[in-house]
């Protein structure tokens, strides 16, 4: 069975600083990987996804993530954070299911706080 580890429960960064959120996964084959963001009181919004091909993927809101098979990682990065990036971030791995799409397994999330 697949699993996802987000080792950082809470990260605080200054506005304008760079950001890297860590995600490690366990899965026996090439995974589908996702990053979602959840603002307070809201549902989850997809930031970016990796299925195959280029290991550096670009997402919305200036985020990017890099798939590193050798490290089983899919870390999320942003060169300069904005106060509006304060939210909870979830990494997820998708295992193909018999219905064609995939079932997602989520990490426990990383809460991002931005300080002025």
């Amino acid at each position, binding site marked *: 069975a697949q699993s*996802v580890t987000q080792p950082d*429960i809470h990260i605080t960064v200054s506005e304008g600083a760079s950001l890297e959120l860590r995600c490690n996964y366990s899965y026996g084959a090439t995974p589908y990987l*996702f990053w*979602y963001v959840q603002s307070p*009181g*809201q*549902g*989850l*919004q*997809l930031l970016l*996804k990796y*299925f*195959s091909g280029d290991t550096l993927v670009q997402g919305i809101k200036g985020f990017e993530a890099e798939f590193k098979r050798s490290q089983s990682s899919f870390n999320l990065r942003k060169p300069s954070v904005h106060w509006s990036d304060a939210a909870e971030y*979830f990494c997820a791995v998708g295992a193909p299911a018999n*219905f*064609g*799409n*995939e*079932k*997602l397994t*989520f*990490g*426990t*999330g990383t809460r991002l706080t931005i300080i002025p």
Partner: protein
Amino acid sequence: NAGVTQTPKFRVLKTGQSMTLLCAQDMNHEYMYWYRQDPGMGLRLIHYSVGEGTTAKGEVPDGYNVSRLKKQNFLLGLESAAPSQTSVYFCASSGLRTNGKGGEQFFGPGTRLTVL
């Protein structure tokens, strides 16, 4: 285009009471999902549906039932609520992935349920 909507937004139940959560999507998606989100545990899949009239168990199905009588609606029922079912419930939907495109899950805003 409202996306995924959930009713109600908040609910307080007493132990043993029953209720139904409604999820509706207007994107003509084939697949729908119910998750629960608990602190420190990320999202866990309760049940899912691959089409009208079909449902399947997810990771944590006990104590819940679902129905998908119409393609656009997915109902989650609690027959006899327990305090352990206090959680935030999210519905999601996804369309078919074709040639590696699409298929990502879109989430509703959530329902906060408290069982006393």
